[in-house]
C-alpha cells in the first residue's frame, strides 16, 4: 500500500500531509486533497488490520460520510483525522451514512447577529443536519451558489502568527479532550460555541472510560475550540482565541464611523442594534479612547470599551479583541489597564511625562518617590516635592491665576471680567482633584468633568475642588 501511495505521488499535484489518529497510534499519510473519505478508509484499514467498512472517520465533531471530499473539509496541512472502529450496534437510522463536515453545515447567517432571540427559533434534531442550511430566516438565500459563498468564516487571534487570522472550529470531548468525538447536534449560535456544556455528543475515544465515569452524573459534552488556519498546525495544543465579534459583513451594514460599507470582516458591537465598524475604524476608536483613558475597568471583563453609540450593556467581553491594535498600542493598552487598576486600588500615577508608572503609596505621606523614574513629587499638587504649602502651578507665561492645590482656597478671590474677555486662553493641564489624572482645558468654561472613565468627577478649574453653585456664580467663565 505504501508502495502504491508513493508511486502515485507523481501524479498528485497537491500533497496534503495529515495524521490519522487511531485508538492505538498515530499514522502520518500524504494524500491528494481530492480524495474522499472512502479512499482514506481504504488506505488506513489495512494498516490497522481492519476492513474499511469497520471504520468511522471523525473530524471536528462529525463522523464524515464516505462521499465527502477532503478538500471540502477545511482540513489544513498536518491536521488530525480520528479513525475509530464501528461498534457492533444497530445503526441509529437507516440512512446513517455519516455526515457532512462541520464547516459545510454551519451557516454564517445564524452566527451573524449576537441577539439570542433570533437563534432560539432553530432547533435541530441529532443528525438531521440537512435542514439547517434551508432553515435560514433571511429570505434572500435560496440559490446553491449563495450558500457556497456564505461558507462560514471565524476570526481568531493566533498567538503563533501574532495577528488576526481566519480560524477553524474544532470539537473535542470536554472530559477526556479526545478529538474522536461526535456531536449530537450542531451549534446554532455563539453561545453554544463559547460557553461550556451546551452540546452533547458521543466520545469515541474510549467510550467505556468516558461514559462509565460520567454515568449518572452528566452526559459527555462537546468542547469547541479554534485553530489558526494560516499556519501549519503545531499539534493539538496549538489553539487560537476566537474573536467572535469580528464577522464577515454579510448584511452589508454601513460602518458606524466612516459610513462606508466594508466587504471584509467587520467588528460587530455586542449591542441590541448590532452596530458595525470596519476594522480600521475600530482600531482608531480604540486608539483614541486609549489616549483619552476612556476605557472602562469592568469588574468581570477587564479594561474594555462599549459601543460608541452609547448603547446599553454593550461592553466588549472578550478583551482579546484589543489584540487588533498594533504592538505599540497594545503595550499601551496593557500599561493603561494596569494603571487603572492601581488608581482603583487607591494608588496614583507618576506625573513625569513619559513615565506614568502606577504607585501604591502610604496615604499619610505627601512625599512620593516614583520607583520607575525616581522622580520625587508632592502627592497633593503633583509638582516636584516641596516642604510647606503647595505653591502656584508653574505654567510658562501664565502665572497670574493664583491656583493652589489646597482645598481651603476659597472661590471668591476669582478674577471675573478680565480673564473672561481675554481672547486667547492658554491650553494647560491640571490634575483632577479626585483621581489626579492630568486634564486639559480647551477654552470654554471652568466647569471640568474628569475625562477618565470611572471618575467623571465634576470640578472647578479655578478652585481645583468639586464644582459648586458658588463656582458657577463667581467664576464660571474665568
Amino acid at each position, binding site marked *: 500500500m505504501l508502495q502504491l501511495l508513493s508511486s502515485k505521488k507523481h501524479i498528485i499535484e497537491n500533497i496534503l500531509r495529515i495524521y490519522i489518529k487511531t485508538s492505538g497510534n498515530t499514522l502520518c499519510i500524504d494524500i491528494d486533497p481530492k480524495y474522499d473519505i472512502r479512499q482514506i478508509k481504504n488506505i488506513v484499514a489495512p494498516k490497522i488490520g481492519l476492513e474499511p467498512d469497520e471504520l468511522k472517520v471523525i473530524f471536528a465533531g462529525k463522523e464524515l460520510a464516505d462521499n465527502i471530499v477532503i478538500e471540502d473539509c477545511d482540513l489544513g496541512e498536518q491536521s488530525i483525522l480520528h479513525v475509530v472502529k464501528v461498534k457492533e450496534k444497530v445503526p441509529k437510522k437507516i440512512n446513517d451514512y455519516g455526515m457532512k463536515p462541520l464547516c459545510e453545515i454551519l451557516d454564517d447567517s445564524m452566527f451573524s447577529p449576537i441577539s439570542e432571540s433570533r437563534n432560539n427559533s432553530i432547533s435541530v434534531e441529532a443528525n438531521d443536519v440537512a435542514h439547517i442550511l434551508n432553515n435560514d430566516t433571511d429570505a434572500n438565500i435560496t440559490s446553491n451558489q449563495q450558500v457556497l459563498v456564505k461558507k462560514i468564516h471565524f476570526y481568531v487571534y493566533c498567538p503563533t502568527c501574532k495577528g488576526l487570522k481566519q480560524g477553524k472550529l474544532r470539537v473535542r470531548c470536554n472530559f477526556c479532550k479526545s478529538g474522536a468525538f461526535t456531536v449530537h447536534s450542531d451549534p446554532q449560535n455563539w453561545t453554544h460555541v463559547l460557553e461550556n456544556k451546551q452540546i452533547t455528543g458521543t466520545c469515541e475515544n474510549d467510550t467505556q472510560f468516558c461514559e462509565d465515569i460520567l454515568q449518572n452524573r452528566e452526559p459527555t459534552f462537546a468542547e469547541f475550540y479554534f485553530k489558526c488556519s494560516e499556519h501549519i498546525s503545531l499539534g493539538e495544543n496549538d489553539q487560537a482565541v476566537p474573536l467572535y465579534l469580528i464577522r464577515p459583513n454579510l448584511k452589508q451594514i454601513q460602518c*458606524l464611523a466612516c*459610513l462606508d460599507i466594508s466587504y471584509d470582516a467587520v467588528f460587530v458591537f455586542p449591542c441590541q442594534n448590532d452596530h458595525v465598524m470596519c476594522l480600521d475604524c475600530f482600531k482608531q476608536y480604540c486608539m*483614541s479612547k486609549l489616549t483619552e483613558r476612556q476605557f472602562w475597568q469592568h469588574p468581570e471583563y477587564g479594561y474594555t470599551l462599549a459601543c460608541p453609540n*452609547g448603547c446599553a450593556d454593550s461592553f466588549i467581553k472578550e478583551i482579546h479583541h484589543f489584540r487588533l491594535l498594533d504592538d505599540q498600542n497594545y503595550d499601551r493598552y496593557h500599561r493603561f489597564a494596569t494603571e487603572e487598576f492601581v488608581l482603583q486600588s487607591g494608588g496614583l500615577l507618576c506625573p513625569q511625562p513619559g513615565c506614568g508608572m502606577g504607585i501604591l503609596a502610604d496615604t499619610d505621606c505627601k512625599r512620593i518617590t516614583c520607583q520607575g523614574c525616581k522622580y520625587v513629587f508632592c502627592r497633593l499638587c503633583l509638582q516636584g516635592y516641596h516642604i510647606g504649602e503647595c505653591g502656584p502651578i508653574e505654567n510658562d507665561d501664565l502665572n497670574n491665576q493664583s491656583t493652589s492645590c489646597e482645598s481651603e482656597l476659597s472661590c471668591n478671590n476669582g478674577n471675573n471680567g478680565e480673564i473672561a474677555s481675554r481672547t486667547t486662553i492658554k491650553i494647560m493641564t491640571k490634575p483632577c482633584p479626585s483621581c489626579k489624572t492630568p486634564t486639559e482645558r480647551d477654552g470654554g468654561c471652568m466647569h471640568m468633568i474628569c475625562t477618565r472613565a470611572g471618575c467623571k468627577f465634576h470640578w472647578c478649574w479655578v478652585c481645583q475642588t468639586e464644582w459648586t453653585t458658588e463656582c458657577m456664580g463667581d467664576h464660571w*467663565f474665568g
Partner: protein
Amino acid sequence: MANIAAQRIKREFKEVIRSEEVAKCAIKVELVDNNYTELKGEIAGPPDTPYEGGNFVLEIKVPETYPFNPPKVRFITKIWHPNISSVTGAICLDILKDQWAAAMTLRTVLLSLQALLAAAEPDDPQDAVVARQYKENLEMFKLTARHWTNAYAGGPSVNPECDDKIKRLVDMGIEEHQARVALSSYNWDLERATEQLFS
C-alpha cells in the same frame, strides 16, 4: 492610518448640502479649510421665538478623533440664551458633551442647536445671568433676546427704547457691546447699568 474624521466629514458635508433643511434655508454649512477640520455652520432662528428672523453663525471644529468625540461648536454670532455663553459663544448641550453618539452627524448637531434655540433648558445653564433672567422675568428675557437677534443676527428691529438707552451709554464713552451687556444684565435699568459700568 486613514483619516476617518476627514472622510466622514466629507460624506456628512454632502448629506447636509442635499438635506431638505438646506433647501428650506434652515441650516447651512461651509468649509473653512480644505482638510475638513473646520467648518462654518449657520442656523436660522426658529419661528415664534425671539430668534426668528436672525441668522446665527457657528464655528465647528472637527477633532481628529471624530466621530468618536463630538465636534467642538460655538456661536460666533453673539446671542442671548441661557444655554449659550453671551461672552464666548460656548454651548451647553448634552450631545456636544457626554451624550454624544458616533452615529450623530453635522446635520443632527445643527438641528439640535436649532431646537435648543426653540426650547431653552435654564436648569442646565451655560450663562448664569441669562438663565436667571429667563427664570425670573421671561418677558424681559424675550425682549433682550430679540434685541440681540436684531443687533447681531440681522433680525427685525423691535424696541427703539433699548436702542436709545444704548446710545445714551455710548455717548458717555462706553463701547456699544459693553453697554448692551450691562443693560441686558440689569433688565434695561439704565441707572443700575450705568452704576455698574462706572463703579
